[in-house]
């Protein structure tokens, strides 16, 4: 019986297979160690590009037409609807405005039902995608005001999912973007830089194949002697 069943061949096969797998694992490990990963560090930086403002809330994204937005706000300001930090209707996609000397013009998003859903980006032709496609990477960058409050019926619970998808789409078109989180207590606002350092709208996320992107692989960089 002992002569009939020998386990030697099986042991050889198993040990050889395990040995080969270990060699593969070591090779992969060495290969991975040599790999250089490009990491994008989202630091805000000075820019000569013009900001195009977006509000992202409840899985929807609204591109703000600043001309209409400011024309409506001016109309309200001249009719004294905006005095004494009063809330007034901007008559622009349900936004409410408020003017004060700390935040310039603040705007609060309420009803978002008529805003475009971010899923429209995936469609070949949709108002949202058309608006995004109009942006010129050599002249403009996108700046997002992202709501992080939880609304009923929102799959992600906030505007973050919509913001991330839109930003990725813009990056594929080499358009830079910046953002800030907002909520009803710290609303989105546009103000002059002379007011406060917080009134600065700069990109932090670089466009896809931007000619000015940094070379993070450069091993030879040194900050010596840089004034």
């Amino acid at each position: 019986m002992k002569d009939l069943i020998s386990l030697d061949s099986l042991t050889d096969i198993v040990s050889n297979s395990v040995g080969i797998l270990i060699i593969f694992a070591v090779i992969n490990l060495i290969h991975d160690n040599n790999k250089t990963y490009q990491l994008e560090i989202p630091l805000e930086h000075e820019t000569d590009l013009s900001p195009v403002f977006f509000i992202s809330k409840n899985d929807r994204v609204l591109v703000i037409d600043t001309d209409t937005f400011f024309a409506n706000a001016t109309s309200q300001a001249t009719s004294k609807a905006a005095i004494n930090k009063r809330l007034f209707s901007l008559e622009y996609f349900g936004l409410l405005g408020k003017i004060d000397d700390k935040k310039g013009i603040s705007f609060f998003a309420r009803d978002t039902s008529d805003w475009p859903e971010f899923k429209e980006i995936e469609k070949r032709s949709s108002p949202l995608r058309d608006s995004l496609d109009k942006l010129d990477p050599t002249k403009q960058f996108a700046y997002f005001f992202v709501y992080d409050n939880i609304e009923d019926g929102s799959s992600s619970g906030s505007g973050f999912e919509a913001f991330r998808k839109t930003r990725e789409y813009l990056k594929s078109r080499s358009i830079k973007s910046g953002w800030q989180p907002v909520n009803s207590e710290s609303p989105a606002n546009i103000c002059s830089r002379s007011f406060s350092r917080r009134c600065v709208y700069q990109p932090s996320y670089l466009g896809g194949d931007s000619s000015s992107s940094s070379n993070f692989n450069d091993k030879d960089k040194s900050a010596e002697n840089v004034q």
Partner: protein
Amino acid sequence: MKTPFLQLKKQWSLAEETSIQDLLEHALNKLNTNPNDPELVYAIAELYRHLDNNAEADKFYKQAIDITNQRTLQRAEALEKRVDKKRNNIRLKLLLFTLLPIITGLFIAAMIWSTLSKPEPLPKGSNPEKFAFTQWLAKQQMVEVMSTLQAENPELTFDFSRSATAMSPMEFMQSMMQPDALEKLRRDQEAAKNNNDDGEGKPAFQCSREPAMRCAKRDIPSAPGEERNEVVLLMDAYRSVLNTEKDCEKIEKSIESIGQQLHWRKSERNIKADLEDLATECFYKQKNVEKTLEHARKLQCSGDAGYINSVYWYTTAINHYADNKAGALTAYQCFQEATKHIEKNELFSPAYIASRHRESGALAWLYFDDLSTATEELKKGRAILKKIPKKTRIMQDVIGEINLDLMETYVTANVDNDEFQELLDEINSSGRLTDGYKQIKDTLASIYYMQNNQPNTALIHLKNLSLRFKLIPEYVCGWDWTGFRRGLKDSINDERIREQATILVDATNCYIPQATSKRIEQIQSVVKFLKGR
């Protein structure tokens, strides 16, 4: 067997064996002293009933009922009295609380009336013109003055609606109080007659080297009234959006539509000027001669003294670009005149005046090839700020910019090493230069050391230059190399070094659109050249 009326006997302290008859007699005796006790009467009735004297029992039962009824009535009457008393108390309280606010209001009104009735004392050191009585008196005088003027000069008309002068009735009255007021009024009437029907007026500053600016009425912020705070805040915010806008026509359209909505007030002219300045700069960058001049004129017509230099800066530059040398020279002379005007009248801060000297120097060098005037103006600006002991951040920024301009003239004039080194050390130690300006500084320094046979020092600056280009995500600068590039012909004799300097200038010229990698490549070619020497 149970003893009848045991409880009664105990109550009256009688023996248990006391008979009902004796108990009755005892009860009747008690009745003499307390005839209205219903319980006693009822007990007597019960005793009679036990003695089978039903007639007497009925009589006492009825008497007990009568007494109980009387007591019930008495209690009800007492309750009624208590309720009436309580109700009266509530009525009194209600009346008091209703009248109390009225009484308080009347008291406060009386106090206010009493305070207001007192004569207003003039606070020490306050402006008598703000005094209510003075204002009332002034209004009365104004009415009298105007009536007299109207009577004596029937051809004169007074219109305080939106006009070119846009004086309030009070301002007008004050001007009337001046000795030559009538003469001035007649002169203004004459001037108005000479203008065309488009409602032309005069800008705030008039350069002696050019004819009076003719402004369309809609270009002059002239509506009366105080500055609207919310409009100022809103326009400041809008400016931050338009500031980087590249579409000049869009800016132009926005200013037009906003102007139509706002009806610019005279007190808001600085906002209008600010927006026009943006449009002028935008069209200048596009080298659109016609539009630059148009918006420079509108900027001038806005009448804000803070933007006069800006008007002449752009007109000098754009006239030079359009090859209108005479126009450029006139504009530059007006720029200098405007600088003197603001300096003489102390209209602005030292940092503002120093900046204008810096611009004057830049214009002299860029468009008139006048290195000595440029250096003189820059030193003048620098001296204004240097003598101020405590410098603000804005002052430090202006000094940094002036130093950088001065460095350009130093490199062009190839000043001696010590003087150059001193300036370079000051720039390096200021800590106020932006990345864009640091690139300009290193370009100039490397060119200076190249032409003075110090290749190793030049290489350090070139390494900084190249490294910074690799690190900065976006090259933002506003440096016009035109004058320096032109001056290289005379400042550097060695043709090969001049060629390398030109390559460096082009590499750091932000107005030449090129990829950062291309800029680094050009710098590396100069590094290679220096290492090969």
